[in-house]
């Protein structure tokens, strides 16, 4: 099929960007979206043009590195899917597809569709871990964890850090990402001990990185490839408020 593309091209964070038109013939239904982009880039390179820079790696929906706005939606038209798992069968012959980078104050553009998501790493650095040294951990079955708690912690831990939540939020909030980590560790006995300190530090870092406040629209959950629940945000707010209250009493 034939596809018309309008892609955001921008040399670097300091340069102005613009939408550029491309046409791609012979797009195959079973191609993944990124394979369609590969085909475009092959065409551009052979024509002597600079290919479109975009991030990707595992192409299995798990590494979290890919991500672009496709027709105004993070990771494209299908809910709970990464861009690498989107297939061209979701489009039809003659469609025009608008492709832009994930946008947000905390995600400066590097080039074309690549953005700098290192703010997420800094949020983790603020406390998104269990303070345990390596090499001398106690017997794993020493602290039983209920099946339900382990499953629930996994539901939160499954976040892949792609940034779709930020890109789709009107306030560019990183609340879903940050809360998923806070909830994951708070639900397990190993992480629970420092959960309040963690919540304060990670929320502070999220604000410092210029992510906005949660809008309560729940758009993040709709677009999240891993269906991370907004209930994590409630848990984060609870942990945060509790630690504030306890600190002030």
């Amino acid at each position, binding site marked *: 099929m034939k596809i018309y593309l309008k892609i955001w091209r921008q040399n670097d964070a300091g340069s102005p960007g613009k939408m550029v038109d491309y046409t791609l013939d012979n797009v195959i239904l079973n191609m993944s979206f990124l394979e369609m982009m590969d085909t475009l880039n092959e065409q*551009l390179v052979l024509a002597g043009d600079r290919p479109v820079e975009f991030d990707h*790696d595992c192409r299995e929906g798990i590494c979290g590195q890919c991500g672009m706005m496709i027709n105004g939606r993070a990771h494209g038209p299908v809910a709970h899917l990464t861009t690498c798992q989107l297939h061209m069968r979701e489009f039809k012959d003659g469609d025009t597809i608008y492709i832009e980078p994930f946008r947000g104050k905390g995600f400066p553009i590097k080039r074309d569709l690549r953005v700098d998501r290192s703010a997420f790493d800094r949020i983790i650095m603020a406390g998104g871990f269990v303070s345990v040294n390596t090499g001398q951990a106690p017997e794993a079955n020493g602290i039983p964890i*209920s099946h339900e708690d382990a499953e629930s912690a996994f539901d939160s831990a499954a976040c892949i850090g792609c940034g779709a939540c930020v890109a789709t939020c009107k306030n560019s909030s990183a609340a879903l990402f940050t809360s998923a980590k806070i909830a994951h560790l708070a639900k397990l006995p190993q992480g629970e001990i420092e959960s309040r300190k963690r919540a304060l530090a990670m929320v502070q870092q999220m604000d410092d990185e210029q992510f906005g406040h949660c809008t309560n629209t729940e758009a993040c959950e709709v677009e999240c490839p891993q269906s991370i629940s907004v209930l994590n945000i409630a848990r984060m707010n609870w942990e945060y408020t509790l630690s504030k209250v306890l600190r002030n009493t």
Partner: protein
Amino acid sequence: MKLNAKIPPGPLKDKWTYYKDHAKLVNPANRKKLDVIVVGTGLAGSSIAASLAEMGYHVTSFCFQDSARRAHSVAAQGGVNAAKNYKNDGDSTYRMFYDTIKGGDFRSREANVYRLAECSAQLIDQAVAQGVPFGREYGGYLNNRSFGGVQVSRTFYARGQTGQQLLLGAYQALMRQVAAKTVSLFTRHEMLDVVLVDGKARGIIVRNLDTGEIERHTAHAVILASGGFGKIYYLSTLAMGCNASAIWRAHKKGAFMACPSWTQVHPTSLPQSGSYQSKLTLMSESLRNDGRIWVPLKANESRKPNDIPEEERDYYLERRYPAFGNLAPRDISSRAAKERIDAGFGVGPQQNAVYLDFSKAIQEQGKQKIKEKYGNLFDMYHKITATDAYTEPMMISPAAHFSMGGLWVDYELMTTIPGLFALGEANFADHGANRLGANSLLQACVDGYFVAPYTVSNYLSGEIKEPRLSVERQEFVDAEVVVRAHLSKLVSIKGSKTADHYHKTLGKLLYDYCGLSRSKEGLLKAIKGIRELRSDFYQNLKVSGDEDEMNGELEKAGRVSDYLEVAELMCQDALTREESCGAHFREEYQTPEGEALRNDEKFCFVSVWQYQGEGKDEILIPEPLKFENVELAVRSYK
């Protein structure tokens, strides 16, 4: 050069204890004077970087992804092995050691494999302490399941995303150290050369992938944890960026390569559907616990799978390997699938797949139970193929997966270059000619959390008096000149074919002649083809853009230029090993039933290769394997 594997003395079960008891220590006050470079932030890289930083060394960590959390370890699905014997089904360190040695077709070192099994229990403890949400029984205790090649349940799992959860644990430990300023982390940096000073590894040259800038970094030791190179086949289960560059450039500087031709072909990947395809997606081997593999009894069958009655199906793994059935090891299962596909019984539009059927398991256990165990894998299958595997069988096919070969290392995980270590999939050490399922995450973690912290310290104890080097030293300047010249050369060819074109062509050559089965004739043909392709590459490659800017095409071209050299050594390695073992099936050496025929008399060794310079044949130095604790048996799963 004579190889010394430095295996500690004493009985097998005491060797690692002996080593730890005798390894030299570094005084805490001296550790801060010592710098270590770690390349790669997967399980091996993150865990060793965090471990050394906690001990007080100053660590510099590099990865080419945009975040340390995105290394390829994240994609491993099925689980991680540990001899905990929680199921009371007879598991033990020795049994795990034996299964792993046997699974690798008796082509790995006893001492290394025993240590892997010994440290496995500790790893589960470590991961749980870090908050990895492993599957739990209703009583709160850890759950586990079986994987291919074994008859006990020793695989711990976090649904179908065990790699992701283990990596997050290691990544979080790493970021904790970055926050504490004991680790300096450089993301989007690719290592392009290792720098030797007085014969020892003292630094690396990297390219900042955002700016194109070339940087020099110095240290007292360099650790490569840069993963495997199965992506050399182009179509593979590996992430797009996985490459051989770091280890290959170290090889050209003097580190020996071992058994490069041993690449595991995984039996449960999704089949190729077209020439545009960029990768093959893996479905976890854990699915074979409940899924039954079959093909139609009739060749060129056109009916849909659900329309084919039970008596017209060939459950070929259950038929050929009744003891292990659908859980036969990966090399056996992959070859059995290829045999059926080549014989005309393949299914799917390209007749290149076999069925993995859950109908019986759903009938017996209910859909909900299967959903609980493998739900995300079924979802993933649906996303990619638009097919509901709860109602019709999955289609699966073998695909290139894990590199058992890599840089040769001794028991201390040190290469033949003093001060240069290789961990995880980047080394050759523990898997022999075939890796048992769920041992990959294990090896990467064990190397990084439990082995290298001792062995790297042992090495560094001799480096305390070595000063920090200036990056202005001639050795660094010279290495940078070579790196820059190579990049300029790639950009200046200005031909008419892309790096992807060469990568795909090379991949096809390797699949055809150095893949699931090999023959002398095919390998000679491949070597000739690779040489021609390499020559064409340097005449007709086209890279747009410049070297001093962000340039994804240049990154690819650099990796393909290395692959074109690695591929020849792979074929050379396969050619000289005149036997069949594990992932290496030489058509000339098979039993009348079509099973692999090992030759222990002539080939019970690790093939170690020494680089001789541009265009010269490498020299083979065998490292004999001594088996004092197990008897070399025919590997039968019947």
